């Protein structure tokens, strides 16, 4: 079959290359990006939003990718970049929808302070989970320190004993974990469907 010249094998291209091609106006690259990233984006958004709104957010997300691909600097974190866009679109949608008032337990909606929208909170949880995933596989050193120190709230000495390392090591790993997490949350978490 005749292939037009310059057509590349998109399935073997990495995400950065695809985004570059989208910026150049190649809609087939957008299609490939969609087939790679829409599934996990949908799963993550679905944890926070109803199905119809997930579809709307995904549509706006990829249209934003189409328009804004020129602003992406190749850095191997295309998945995180797309999630960042999705996150913003979800926030826009939630703002338009207005704060959910039904079903909030009494006492949470403090006077003057805007109550946390359950969907907003779910998205924030999803953000955090993705950021924690950048610390490495579960059971790895940084991940374990994070889990024991911050999720289970144990003192440093106890964590040091459990992991069999000196307390200084625990503190330096915790420091690194906090740094990585800050970077991940700021820059948009690299996703499980992230770039190659």
């Amino acid at each position, binding site marked *: *079959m*005749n292939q*037009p010249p310059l057509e590349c094998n998109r399935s073997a291209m990495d995400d950065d290359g695809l985004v570059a091609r989208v910026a150049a106006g190649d*809609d*087939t690259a957008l*299609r490939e990006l969609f087939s790679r990233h829409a599934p996990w984006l949908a799963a993550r958004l679905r944890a926070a939003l109803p199905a119809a709104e997930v579809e709307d957010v995904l549509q706006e997300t990829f249209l934003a990718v189409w328009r804004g691909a020129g602003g992406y600097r190749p850095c191997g974190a295309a998945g995180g970049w797309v999630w960042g866009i999705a996150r913003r679109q979800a926030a826009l949608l939630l703002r338009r929808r207005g704060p959910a008032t039904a079903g909030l337990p009494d006492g949470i909606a403090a006077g003057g302070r805007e109550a946390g929208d359950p969907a907003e909170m779910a998205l924030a949880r999803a953000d955090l989970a993705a950021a924690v995933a950048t610390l490495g596989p579960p059971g790895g050193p940084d991940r374990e320190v994070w889990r024991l120190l911050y999720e289970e709230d144990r003192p440093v000495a106890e964590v040091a004993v459990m992991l069999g390392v000196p307390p200084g090591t625990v503190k330096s790993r915790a420091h690194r974990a906090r740094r990585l997490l800050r970077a991940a949350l700021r820059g948009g978490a690299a996703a499980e469907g992230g770039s190659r």
Partner: protein
Amino acid sequence: MNVDITGLTRRFGRTQAVAGVSLEAGAGVFGLLGPNGAGKTSLLRMMATVLPPTSGRLRLLGRDPGSYGPRREIRRRLGYLPQNLGYYPGFTAAEFVEYFALLKEMPPGEVPRAVAAAIEHVGLGDKARAKLRTLSGGMLRRAGIAQAIVNEPELLLLDEPTAGLDPEQRVAFRALLRDLGQRATVIVSTHLVEDVGAACTEVALMDAGRIVFHGTPDELTARGEGTGAAGDAPLERGYSAVLAAARSSTAVA
């Protein structure tokens, strides 16, 4: 009934292309089989309001295509894929489908979405913005199918739609036919017997301008049993048996 034909004939000079055809078709997939020159294309052209009948009664979608107003209404709800579909080399696939969507007087606001849906439906999503001159024969045929379905027609007429499609594409196409046949009348003219068996709920077999068989694919298969007619598949044998019987009876008459 979306198609209601009684005693339709069409003559070209001294040849009778269609020599008295009567049929009724509602929703579903209707196969039109027959050898070359049997009159299938002329019949399809008459149903597409491109060719007027010489005599007989033709009612499409409850209207009479003989007068301008009803004919225009029919054409808005019609999808047609001719046997020889030319294409505009400089158009992209999306532009091609969009052009005919507009000529079918679809509301302009609905056109972009309908075009995208039609292109995805026939599997040309990768080629939507490619120029038609870069597409293979099978892809061009699929672009033709896309323009036929873009307006979600109530009457869909396809003349040799699977020409140039590879087996995998033909399977996908038959699934598309079954899906469309839920809501619309789909009439497929083909000489590929297996296309008919897989997708059609009703079959008519034409020879020399007349319908010599009208029934279900199973009934056609049954006509071939025990006759020793030629054919590798049961449906083909039924086809040959019916044709042979029709020709011998006309020879006798």
